């Protein structure tokens, strides 16, 4: 391998180029899975509600009376221009859905990540350092439970708890109707809009609504992070450099903090990046649980309306996000850790 920056730029270039065939396989998969089904999107969405002639007109307008291969190429062309099509049932561009509802999903997942990291990192480190102690066992059981308990069930149980203990705390939606009515939509991210409006009650209202969903999704993620950090700290504690640090008379606390934990974090960063896929899945379920107006709720809505184009567009968008994050994480890793380059 050549040395220095040459190999790094080569690594980044290869990694970015690999996105294209990967996205292509995904797009092809999604397109053909959804379209090869007998019956067509229009009759699936409107069958029985409109006359056969009206259906034909809609089919023609959507262009789905043309050969499949033409539609396929057109779809690929559209996605290349970041156009994900228009929904059949209410004729909205999928990108509008992303703009209007993406903000809700974004604040939900970011809040959850924040919570998961704040809780997961220290607990995982504790469990890793005091391996096989009682604390470790309790923390590990917590990790197993977050894996075994479906997130939507945990959400429902938390709703029940909150309804019993704090009847006035919000358990559904992203804000009270009055807040949504008064806050001017500028960024399409309600939390930011509320902050920009400077209205204290609106901000606290939106924040309050965030607590329960973010906590629920965060619990799921913290389980993953705890397991990861624990294993990596244990592994790092076995390293020669930890032994060397101890030999130099550095206190055990400093050894864990500065030497073992830091090295464990490199591996953790990679996997946290890969958790985006799991987070998206969790977000879809959390949104349904808390009636959260995000992309997951939209996806469910269009699934129930049997709207093929909307489902195809949203799924494509999700896949794009996942692929792009995984590439970003790989590149960041390449920058941090010279061992992973091609």
């Amino acid at each position: 391998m050549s040395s220095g920056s040459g190999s790094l730029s080569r690594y980044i270039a290869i990694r970015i180029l690999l996105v294209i065939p990967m996205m292509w396989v995904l797009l092809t998969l999604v397109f053909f899975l959804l379209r090869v089904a007998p019956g067509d999107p229009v009759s699936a969405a409107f069958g029985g509600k409109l006359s056969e002639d009206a259906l034909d007109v809609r089919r023609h307008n959507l262009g789905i009376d043309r050969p499949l291969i033409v539609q396929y190429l057109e779809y690929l062309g559209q996605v290349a221009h970041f156009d994900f099509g228009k929904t059949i049932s209410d004729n909205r561009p999928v990108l509008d859905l992303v703009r209007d509802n993406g903000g809700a999903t974004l604040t939900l997942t970011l809040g959850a990540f924040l919570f998961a990291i704040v809780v997961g990192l220290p607990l995982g480190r504790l469990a890793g350092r005091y391996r096989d102690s009682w604390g470790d066992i309790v923390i590990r059981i917590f990790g197993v439970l977050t894996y075994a308990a479906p997130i939507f069930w945990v959400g429902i149980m938390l709703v029940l708890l909150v309804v019993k203990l704090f009847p006035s705390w919000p358990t559904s939606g992203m804000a009270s109707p009055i807040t949504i009515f008064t806050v001017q939509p500028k960024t399409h991210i309600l939390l930011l809009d509320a902050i920009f409006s400077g209205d204290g009650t609106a901000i606290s209202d939106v924040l309050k609504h965030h607590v329960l969903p973010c906590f629920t999704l965060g619990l799921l993620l913290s389980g993953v992070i705890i397991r990861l950090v624990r294993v990596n700290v244990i592994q790092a504690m076995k390293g020669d450099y930890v032994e060397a640090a101890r030999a130099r008379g550095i206190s055990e606390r400093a050894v864990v903090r500065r030497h073992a934990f830091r090295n464990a974090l490199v591996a953790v960063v990679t996997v946290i990046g890969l958790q985006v896929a799991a987070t998206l899945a969790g977000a879809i379920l959390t949104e349904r649980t808390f009636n959260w107006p995000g992309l997951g709720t939209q996806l469910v809505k269009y699934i129930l309306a049997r709207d093929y184009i909307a489902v195809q567009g949203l799924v494509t968008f999700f896949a794009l996000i996942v692929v792009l994050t995984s590439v970003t994480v790989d590149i960041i890793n390449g920058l941090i850790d010279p061992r992973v380059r091609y």
Partner: protein
Amino acid sequence: MRGLLRQIWNTKGLARWILLVGAIVTVVFVLFALFAPWIAPFDFNQTRDAAGVKFEKLASPGSGHLLGTNDQFYDICSRVVWGARTALEVVLLSVVLSVVIGVPLGLVSGFLGGWVDRVLVFVMDAIYTVPYLLLAIIFAFMLNDRIGSGIVAAALSLVAIYIPQYFRVVRNTTVSAREATYVEAARAIGARPTTIMRKYLFGNVVQSVPVIGTLNAADAVGTLAALGFLGLGIQPNEASEWGYDLSRALDDAQAGVWWPALWPGLAIVLLITGLTLVGEGLNETLNPALRRRRLLPVRFTPREKVDAT
């Protein structure tokens, strides 16, 4: 198979307990599934008792209905018991199908190598990047229109998620086993590729399949429930499904009614935990790097006196 059982018998310590607890929990659910008509007080879609009187809506737990009724007048206890049958049917079908498809695919891909291997690996990796739930949603969405929303459709939606996992593991083991001396020896005595795959490689690469299988089964229970929760699973009049029941319980939970949500969820948690424990226990038993064996007493044969001559 016999070797597997003996290895399980010879486990010790934590692995033994994990296996035991997991097996007990799983067996309880299997019994529920097998004997649901006798265990459950009512049918899963029954809304009237034998005298034709309609059940109370959202009746609280207690007299008449052990765990209460839900907003569709169903008896929750019966739904939970029958739900075990649905879950296990779907899980069994999906795991068996993904093993039957994934393992040979991985074996052939790893053994042949070349462009077949490359294309397959690439496609599987691409599938692997899609969030598993999204993939299941696409499949369920498509299959609902084609073959309805029954147990087979649900199982098939899950198969797509799990095939790449078997493919990966089996393919990688095959690639490393292909160059082993015993395969070379087989080739030298003129064994055909199919014979090598069937007789020499297969036995060596399926070692990890039981572990992945049980862990997948645990995962499948959760994914099935998630599909049901999103309205893509099995419809309530076809079979009892825990995830669907939880989605019905959402509004009641907002109103503070706890019993429709608690029990189906608890059943999911317990079944997933049971299966996961079995999987982890098997892993610690079968994986040579992790396993700790029970030490059997060693008996030395008495030494024979040798006459010094």
